[in-house]
């Protein structure tokens, strides 16, 4: 599984919790209501735990976290 697949699986399991929503890697996680205040913190913690990469606080911005694709791109550039 590549980074985006791992993230996708995590979001489906932990943020969607089985909710019957079709999610693609480019979908906006905020507009679709998947990401909330705790969701974004969860994803940051998961990245640290799973990929061993501590996201600097200043990088936790919409541009880097708006979709699975955006997070994967951000990780590819910084890891």
């Amino acid at each position, binding site marked *: 599984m590549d980074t985006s697949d791992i993230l996708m699986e995590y979001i489906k399991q932990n943020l969607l919790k089985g*909710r019957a929503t079709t999610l693609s890697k480019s979908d906006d996680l905020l507009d679709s209501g998947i990401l909330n205040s705790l969701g974004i913190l969860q994803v940051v913690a998961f990245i640290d735990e799973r990929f061993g990469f501590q996201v600097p606080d*200043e990088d936790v911005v919409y541009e880097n976290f708006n979709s699975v694709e955006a997070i994967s791109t951000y990780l590819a550039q910084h890891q």
Partner: protein
Amino acid sequence: MLKRFLLLNGLATIGVVMNHAAGWGYTALLWFTFGEWGDVNFTLVGSPSYFGLRFIEQLIAFSIAAFLVVSGFFIAFAARRSATVSWGTVRSRIVYLIVPYLLWSVAIFLFDFVQGERYTPRQYVVRLLTGGVTDGYYYVPMLCQMFLLSPLLVRLARWNWRVLLAGTAVILLTVQSITYLEIMGTAVPAWLTFWTQAWLFPSNLLWFTLGIIVGFNLTAFKEWIRRWRWLWLGTAILLLPLGVLEWEYWQAVSGEPFLPTRLTLLDTLYAAAIIFTWLAFENFIPPRAQNLNDLGTKSYGVYLANSPVLDVTARLIAVVLPFVMLHQILLQPILWVAGLGIPLLLMAIIGNERSPVRTYYKYIFG
């Protein structure tokens, strides 16, 4: 620092459970004084059990403030680089707050109905709109109001965050001044006291706004809280006993034998000191940090479920083990375990991959 937010949310979740359990502690002290339900009795006010409960209330007085700072921070994140946060985001947040809230409220109404409690349709509506269904539910309508105000707050934060912060601080000071006047027996116009109610935004707007401002000025805020970190810690330690004493003072001034606690100026300073201390001492990792993180992610579900669980648990204890109600040192830990453990168990069962109702998890626990 952001990882500290999740831990802070976990701590605040424990805090709200302890606060609701302390509420049942007071109920036991005042109405179960002699081992059975009776008329209110103030004999135990001033006893070690009473001060134990007051200490708990004071200790966790940062919980709601912490939740709101985290919610405010999210709004700053969601605002992106636009002028303000979109109504779509606001709507989405409110929907995911309201659906579980309505579900739990209806369940509590049914429970009350079975127990013989009857309300008029108007009373049901008022209780839903004001969060008066059970202890702590005021938070949901209040947070919805914060989200509705967030497009305006973001614009103001981008324009001049200092003015916004000062403005919300003045609003909070006004609310608390009205509270002090009421305690002192001064006649305050009803239209003014109306705005001091916990379910309305003025008494907590400062915290949500602070979260937004922190989100927009993260680097500067981190440097600032780190520079003064020992001051925050010292202030928190000092204000913990002072907050308890302050309420004793106001209770004496009021002439009442017992006054349910309300948030005061010292509580506000204490909450700020605790939150800043927690965020500033980044290298301090508490024991069982992973569990605390996990709890932080489940805060809304625990928040909604713990009140009814504590209601049922405390009523059961009063029937089955009435002597426990007389000993806070036994009652409180039982209520903490039930108030945290049962909601978490329900969440684990419903959220399990094999659960047939897993699809509805988000609608039940948020």
